[in-house]
């Protein structure tokens, strides 16, 4: 394992203090927790927006803290969901009396810990609502199983719910627009190289020199198939087509596009992927309202990328364009 770290078991703590010191006027660390909040939390007359999960997905989730987006992020160990008490402390840290809305990626651990924290908070009279993001079309959608994973599309939910909250909406209104976003966002990813959890010391999986895995999850969960690596155009096509099979888009529909890097893939390659994705959408007569290319939801140093499409209506467009102070999702 080759990493620029100190103690592998202290990476999350070290990262937290490095983050706070990078933005001491924007961020605040709740002592004795793994919770980071807006410096000005709790924000009065505003629903508190909370997200989080295992670490290793930076800039998710702490990079999305700021006016217009998240009020707090609760960080778990690398790829492990934060425990109930941490989430509970995060809820208390951002509740100003208007209630707290939590955005959860659909992994059993995350869902259970956030749900229990919610119950503890509600037992104290704090209003809590939530949405579970499940945008990964690589997993089949089923209510009998764990169901789809939450990946890069989650960032759009942060942005839109965050804007709604910033506009002073109620917990119910935020839940409504967050659910609309989840219903309209789809993603799929692929990897050409693995990643190593610091505490584990060994790569989570291995790919041959010629192999890629299509449909992989952001923790290295199995995808749809392993095969020989192809061209950027073919990769972009496969990811986009799979998404389009799942979300029927018709001519003149408007979408936001996110080409997300998983960690080790250069921006150059993400732009090359974007070229093809835009071409495919154009040929379908789908209008691209905004495009985001960069690292938004990573998997440590995994090599690969994901494509996300968010179908937009006027409300979602307005909220997507709403100003945000989040360090990794600034909108003027």
């Amino acid at each position, binding site marked *: 394992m080759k990493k620029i770290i100190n103690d592998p078991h202290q990476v999350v703590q070290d990262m937290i203090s490095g983050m706070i010191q990078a933005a001491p006027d924007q961020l605040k660390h709740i002592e004795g927790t793994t919770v980071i909040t807006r410096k000005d939390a709790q924000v009065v007359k505003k629903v508190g927006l909370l997200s989080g999960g295992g670490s290793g997905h930076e800039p998710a989730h702490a990079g999305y803290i700021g006016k217009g987006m998240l009020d707090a992020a609760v960080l778990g160990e690398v790829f492990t*969901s934060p*425990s109930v008490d941490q989430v509970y402390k995060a809820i208390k840290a951002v509740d100003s009396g208007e209630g707290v809305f939590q955005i959860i990626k659909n992994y*059993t*651990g995350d869902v*259970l810990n956030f749900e229990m924290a919610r119950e503890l908070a509600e037992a104290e009279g704090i209003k809590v609502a939530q949405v579970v993001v499940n945008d990964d079309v690589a997993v089949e959608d089923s209510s009998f199983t764990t169901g789809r994973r939450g990946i890069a599309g989650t960032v759009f939910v942060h942005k839109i719910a965050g804007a709604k909250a910033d506009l002073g909406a109620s917990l119910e209104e935020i839940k409504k627009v967050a659910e609309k976003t989840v219903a309209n966002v789809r993603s799929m990813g692929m990897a050409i190289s693995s990643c190593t959890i610091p505490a584990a010391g060994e790569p989570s999986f291995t790919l041959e020199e010629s192999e890629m895995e299509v449909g992989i999850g952001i923790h290295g969960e*199995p995808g749809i198939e392993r095969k020989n690596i192809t061209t950027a155009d073919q990769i972009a096509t496969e990811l986009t087509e799979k998404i389009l099979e799942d979300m029927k888009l018709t001519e003149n529909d408007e979408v936001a596009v996110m080409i997300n890097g998983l960690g080790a893939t250069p921006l150059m390659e993400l732009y090359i992927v974007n070229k093809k994705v835009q071409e495919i959408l154009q040929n379908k007569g789908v209008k691209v309202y905004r495009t985001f290319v960069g690292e938004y939801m990573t998997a440590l140093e995994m090599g690969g990328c994901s494509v996300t499409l968010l179908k937009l209506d006027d409300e979602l467009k307005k909220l997507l364009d709403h100003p945000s102070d989040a360090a990794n999702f600034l909108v003027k």
Partner: protein
Amino acid sequence: MNFDVNDAKEWLKKANEKIADNKQLLTKLDQVIGDGDHGINMARGFNEAAQTVNEKEYDNVSDVFKDIAMTIMSKVGGAAGPLYGTAFLRLSFSLKGKDSIDYKDLVKGLSDGLTGIKQRGRSKVGEKTLVDVWEPVINEMSETIEAQPPQIKDTAKTAMEKTKEIMATKGRAAYFKEKSIGHIDPGSMSSYYLFLALAEVLEGRQS
């Protein structure tokens, strides 16, 4: 019999030892059909819980289980944390106010714990989760007036091994679909250690 504070402490002590001894095995099982942290998570949390209750004085069993539940919830993380935490919390609730606890009370408490796990995990028997050990074991326990430690051990072991044959539909293992068949469910293995430890405590109480 009367299941008292020391029995509760003893149970956790033994359970923690077994989990610590088999940390690697649990992690290995989770690497195959999960994300390889079950051993790390369980060992971290149960060790913490064992210490907490060991150092403290209690005048009733319910409080012991409450502390265990709280420590597990805050220290285990992942999916197992809230699930085992819920189980011990329900167990604590069901024994609340009782100053003497007989076998029937204990079994009732455990079955409340199982109900908690199933509600929390939205899971039932046959999904390759720890439910596949808890349910048969508690059914077995409910059928006898007095504890039958050997049967408890057998049932738990068989149930744990039988999870091999199941295709996972809950938890991370579900992403492996068919590929999850042929491997023991890590959570069922840790639950097996939990009931093994309980059986040993009950044996001690009888002799």
